């Protein structure tokens, strides 16, 4: 690995450590309003009142690939969401397109039922794997599910491409509310146009902080905001400091003895 990459990674780690330590000492901060989180009670309430399952999905997010953290964060979002739903009779349906994420679905639902003291009502088959060589097959499965399983709404987080349009279109046709987000740009654009409410980009990482009372999750959002501001400063500062940057990196690299 190149010395610059190693150095940048170590600096970033150090930075996050420092920010974590600083943020932990502060009180809970006010977070900006995100419309998608505001309709969560409506989506969960519809499932309970209509006695129909809420459909939640991680799409193509997997464990072991570049979407591992996306899957973990999506799972946390779904955990807090399903905790509201599992007090009803209709068990939520949790779908994934990759088997590596399947244990996550069962664990998430089991935790949600346990947290609400209804572990006896947990049904392992509420976690479903729809095989998908390419994502169209997965989208087709979710389309048919809207009518076959009479879902009350859709919460789609994780990785989707343009095929998300088919799922959201089916959801809209059945007049179901939906929240959608994707880490891929084509999926993100479709989510913005077709979902009842869309989360944009890294807002999915902020979701657990909005839906839970856990201060550590709120702190994550604050750290994220601080790092984002620092990045903006760096982006503005780099053009100004560009002529001096190689010398600074070489000097610091030689002090710490980092080499490629």
């Amino acid at each position, binding site marked *: *690995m190149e010395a610059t990459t*190693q150095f940048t*990674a*170590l600096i970033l*780690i150090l930075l*996050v450590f420092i920010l*974590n330590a600083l943020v932990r000492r502060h009180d809970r901060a006010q977070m900006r309003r995100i419309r998608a989180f505001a309709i969560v009670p409506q989506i969960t309430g519809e499932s309970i009142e209509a006695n129909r399952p809420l459909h939640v999905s991680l799409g193509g997010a997997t*464990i*072991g690939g570049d979407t591992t*953290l*996306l899957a*973990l*964060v999506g*799972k*946390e979002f779904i955990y807090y969401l399903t905790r509201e739903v599992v007090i009803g009779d209709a068990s939520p349906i949790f779908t994934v397109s990759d*088997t*590596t994420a*399947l*244990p996550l679905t069962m*664990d998430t639902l089991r*935790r949600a039922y346990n947290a609400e003291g209804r572990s006896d009502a947990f049904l392992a*088959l509420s976690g*479903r*794997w729809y*095989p998908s060589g*390419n994502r*169209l*097959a997965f*989208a*087709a499965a979710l389309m*048919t599910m809207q*009518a*076959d*399983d009479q879902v009350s709404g859709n919460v789609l987080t994780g990785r989707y491409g*343009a*095929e998300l*349009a*088919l799922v*959201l*279109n089916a959801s809209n046709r059945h007049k179901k509310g939906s929240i959608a987000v994707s*880490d891929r*740009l084509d999926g993100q654009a*479709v989510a*913005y*146009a*077709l979902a009842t409410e869309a989360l*944009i*980009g*890294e807002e999915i*990482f*902020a979701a657990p902080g909005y839906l839970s009372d856990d201060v*550590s*999750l709120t702190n*994550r959002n604050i*750290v*994220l905001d601080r*790092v*984002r501001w620092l*990045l903006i400063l760096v982006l503005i500062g780099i053009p100004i400091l560009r002529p001096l940057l190689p010398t600074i990196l070489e000097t610091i690299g030689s002090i710490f003895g980092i*080499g490629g």
Partner: protein
Amino acid sequence: MRQIAQRIGVVFSTVIVVFVGFSTFLGLLLGDVSYNLPETAYGFAIPFFGGASGVLSTDGLALIFVRIAVVTIALTIVIGVINLLAVNSRRVIQGKLTAKLSSIIIIVMFFVTLVIYAARPTIDEQDGFQFLLENVQVPIESALTGLIFFALVYGAFRLLRKRVTLMGLLFVLTVEIVLIGALPLPGIELLTSVTDWLMRVPVTAGTRGILLGIALATLVTGLRVLIGQDRTYGE
């Protein structure tokens, strides 16, 4: 007593996650680290890792953990197959008529494929076994790809019907300019140049903004999981 056991479980799993996470992360980041420790004031080198100088292989342990993860991930396919059969069997018994039909087809096709592959594991494309794939799956997927276009156009229409906002108008306007600008028609050079500019400047800037945001969030969340501040792996 149960609460204490749970707390111990949480601490134990946190310690394992932090240890495995950090050793894998640092091992893959640093790889082989060459070191050259200076002689101390007492005249001897610090005797760790085989002497005053040498190469410290930090990625050995990391690679072991990565291999364990790969094997575990490979095993999840078994869970997947069991889940697929169980879910569809349940739908056959309890589901609506359309759900029953599709689930029966899935189960039957699963076993047909299994039996054929078990009987002749060396089937190649010339055997005609690809018939279903080429004549059923591929055309259906092509049709679905075509449907995406109509879904997107409907989406743009729906966006304005739902609520007319500045962002919604901007979105639809941009889509229309880009679509028209991409047409090979004479007399729309201005639109073509606007399309080029849109793709080159605002789209690239927005793309980078979203991707940077996701990358930063991934980094922060990943590090917080590594240091045990976010425990996304259990209660």
